[in-house]
């Protein structure tokens, strides 16, 4: 076994998983809690990447760019949830998909207007390479893995230990029963949506140095986010993480084995998992 090939592939795979996890959270939670397929999450991913690019250009500070990207993503998420999505709650899923995808397209149009069509490069904020089993691995990749892991732990802590988290878990099971307890479900939706949008923004900012920032980057990511969420089970955060880990490895390790696998294998994996378990790996209603 050639370790020089496989160790970087596995670590790169985990970093891809980290991005997929962060970006897919909003899709998963949006469906689990609000029964809305919020495709416009990819807009927050895109806008955040552009904000990072802009701030790096203006100040040279990547981390400030990342922070501004997350904040802007959260603000847009807040506006979209309160002004648009509240009007589509309870509507058929296809309707919500059309509405959110339309907003995504409008948003991409605005992105093109502001930043143009040409892809923008963002250099990595950390150039350091560290040795693992004699391999040189970019520290930045490890940082992405650690960040995604920390976000997962933080979200689980919120869900398990705070009243907000308990309300979110309860709301995923039955929003109406939660309202009957005197809890404002719309406020729960809004807070959850801001967190999810911020996570998508974090994914976009972290991914900016790894890809060329362009207006269509959200479309590319949408496909993988969909696979991640469907494979993991809509509404399950644990499922989203496990699924992201699988898809990341399938792309990276699969692509190392035979490059076309990087594109085809995620669909093959999703196909077989859905064939055996149509709800996805953790897709039991009400479980996060």
């Amino acid at each position, binding site marked *: 076994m050639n370790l020089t090939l496989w160790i970087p592939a596995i670590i790169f795979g985990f970093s891809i998983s980290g991005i997929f996890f962060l970006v897919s959270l909003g899709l998963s939670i949006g469906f689990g809690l609000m029964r809305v397929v919020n495709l416009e999450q990819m807009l927050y991913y895109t806008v955040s990447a552009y904000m990072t690019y802009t701030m790096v250009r203006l100040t040279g500070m990547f981390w400030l760019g990342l922070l501004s990207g997350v904040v802007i993503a959260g603000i847009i998420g807040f506006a979209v949830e309160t002004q648009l999505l509240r009007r589509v709650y309870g509507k058929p899923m296809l309707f919500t998909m059309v509405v959110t995808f339309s907003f995504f397209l409008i948003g991409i149009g605005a992105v093109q207007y502001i930043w143009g069509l040409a892809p923008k490069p963002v250099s990595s904020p950390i150039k350091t390479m560290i040795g693992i089993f004699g391999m040189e691995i970019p520290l930045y990749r490890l940082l992405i893995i650690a960040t995604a892991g920390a976000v997962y732990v933080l979200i689980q802590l919120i869900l398990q230990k705070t009243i907000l988290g*308990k309300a979110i878990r309860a709301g995923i099971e039955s929003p109406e029963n939660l309202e009957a307890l*005197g809890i404002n479900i719309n406020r729960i939706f809004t807070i959850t949506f801001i967190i999810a949008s911020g996570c998508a923004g974090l994914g976009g900012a972290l991914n900016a140095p790894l890809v060329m920032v362009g207006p269509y980057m959200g479309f590319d990511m949408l496909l993988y986010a969909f696979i991640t969420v469907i494979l993991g089970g809509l509404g399950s955060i644990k499922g989203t993480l496990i699924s992201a880990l699988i898809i990341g490895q399938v792309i990276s390790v699969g692509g190392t084995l035979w490059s076309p696998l990087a594109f085809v294998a995620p669909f093959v994996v999703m196909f077989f998992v859905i064939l055996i378990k149509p709800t996805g790996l953790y897709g039991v209603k009400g479980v996060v």
Partner: protein
Amino acid sequence: MSVNDGKKLLHVESIDVSYGKLKVIFDVSLYIDDGEVVVLVGRNGAGKTTLFRTIAGFLKIRKGAIRYREEEINPYKAFEVAQKGIRYIHQDKHVFSTLSVSENLELAGHAIGNKDFGPVFEYFPKIETLLDRRAGNLSGGERQMLLIAMALLGKPDLILMDEPTEGLAPHIITDLATSFKKISKTTTLFIIEQNLPLTAQIADRVYCMREGGIVAEIESKDEIKKMSFEKYL
């Protein structure tokens, strides 16, 4: 049928309710006084649950008014109605199954900042022994007890219970009937019930509903004991 015009805890005045264009509640009026146990009986499809969901704020009225302590509550959202002191226990006995019993109780008291579970354990001591159990693993009777305990944690003046004894074993129904009597000393109960002997046992007044309207109100204790409301079903 008389609708008392004095100060009432709840006063439903000539309401119509529709699902889209389909009208399901026709000109319904009723009242609930403080401290009463009022039972609403009627066949399936009579509109009982729709009426409760409307009072609880989940459905909007097309005409009429719903007053709670003299305040018109029909413009309020469901969570605001609950915060004002009307707790609604759904028919489906849905507890938050992935949360523990303790977490269910915590959420129930959160809206008014009540973390003191002690008083509800006096009504349902068994709940105290189940605090760490996942609510999804409770039996039907335990779920119903938990739901009533959760409603009580909101310190409501009025609890709407939609068929609380449906599907429960007879000995559990007997226990619940005893609990209803205890709870009614501090909290007004408005209950949808299909179990007529139980209705005769617990009710201070009975409303009979048929095809979306109130067709009778039985106030006489003797008539209630004789289950004379059965003829209206």
